[in-house]
């Protein structure tokens, strides 16, 4: 099943790598978001280091949605989804493959946005780069687990573009809270142990929703 998932993921990544449109639009959206947020606050009244965690996670969430929209959107053209479903692989494997491709997509956006944030907001992250990356990875997993499932549902509805954020955002609340909460602790120079309760929530969220969404995915397909 893992092999089949990897094949599905590789197919999606190959499509994305050849067109690159979704990646670059998500990336540019994220970078634009960073700059706009900076001017939405009075920089002399609120220190950039206090803004940064919130800005970072709001932007990751929204740019992630752009990528998730595409995930099952590409299967709509020429009813490519039917071909995928008739392939001799488990439906759970299709979900995991799609989620894996989306995860790499989100990590790709984070890999550029995070350094850009450090640069623009002048953040001292040298000491916390590893725990921060771990938080980013855990948050991305939770985001993608839920988002991939809702993406497969939203494409089959009227107003798919509106429905995906409406369904996903409530589910991103614990992720954003935990990720921003722990990022704030780390950037403030607090020991990693203080961010631990938040990290536990992230890990628990990831485990619960990967299992639940993998089990639920077959129900979102045509029978």
């Amino acid at each position: 099943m893992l092999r089949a998932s990897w094949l599905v993921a590789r197919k999606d990544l190959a499509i994305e790598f050849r067109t690159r449109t979704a990646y670059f639009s998500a990336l540019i959206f994220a970078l634009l978001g960073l700059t706009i947020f900076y001017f939405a606050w009075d920089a002399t009244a609120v220190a950039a280091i206090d803004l940064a965690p919130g800005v970072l996670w709001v932007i990751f969430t929204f740019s992630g949605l752009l990528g998730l929209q595409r995930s099952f959107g590409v299967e709509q053209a020429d009813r490519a989804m039917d071909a995928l479903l008739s392939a001799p692989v488990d439906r759970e494997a299709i979900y995991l493959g799609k989620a894996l491709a989306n995860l790499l997509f989100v990590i790709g956006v984070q890999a550029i946005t995070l350094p850009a944030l450090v640069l623009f907001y002048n953040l001292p992250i040298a000491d916390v780069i590893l725990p921060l990356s771990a938080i980013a990875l855990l948050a991305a997993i939770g985001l993608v687990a839920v988002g991939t499932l809702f993406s497969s549902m939203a494409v089959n509805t009227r107003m798919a573009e509106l429905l995906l954020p409406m369904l996903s955002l409530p589910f991103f609340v614990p992720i954003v809270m935990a990720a921003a909460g722990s990022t704030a602790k780390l950037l403030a120079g607090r020991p990693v142990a203080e961010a631990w309760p938040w990290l536990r929530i992230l890990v628990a969220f990831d485990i619960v929703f990967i299992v639940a969404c993998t089990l639920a995915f077959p129900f979102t397909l045509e029978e």
Partner: protein
Amino acid sequence: MTLPLTRREQLDAVTHRSAQPDWLLITGFVAVAAVYVRALAFTPPEATQGAAQRILYVHAPSAFVALYVAFALMAVSSLLYLGLKDEKLDRLAESSAEVGLAFTTVVLTTGPLWGKPIWGTWWTWDARLTATLFLWFIILGYLVLRDAIEERGMRARYSAVLALLAALLIPFIHLSVYLFRTMHPMPIVAKPSAPSMPPNMLITFIAAFCAFVLLYAGLVRARYRYATLRDLVADEEAR
């Protein structure tokens, strides 16, 4: 031996029933009205909060019905639907969601009305408040999702999946916000020690719970009957 009813006969039966007065619903409304009268005229005001405390008799039962009856029933019937694929369960989840939305709205409006004089603020990001607000958002999203899908089987499956994931999500939101400090009054009746409420108030409080559950049951049954009728008419037209 009874033969299964034809669709036409089912439709006739449902139409005939909907012409009768809905006694369950009427009793529910009367019971809630009676509780209002008792709470406002025959229950003494609380010593420190004064008249503002009386909103408890609306707020707490609505919250109980919204969270532990309406939302729970929505999640359970969704889970059963995915296993049994019985349309009745989907209609039950749909009805419970819509009635639950009404009760959640009551919770979210009566809460701030009480919060302003007692806490000094309309809203605070406390664990219960946040979880209830997101429950409200999710039920709205659930109803919009149902509206956005034409095909009935797909609508039932998708909304069941959403309801189940939401049932997993609400504890997470509650827990995350709980990591910040919480400000909501702690339970005063359903707790391990004896209820800390004078008997006079306690009777009103318990009566209010019963009245709201009765009203909920009446509303859900009426809404469920409407859904049945709507689906039967749709089947009739499709033929």
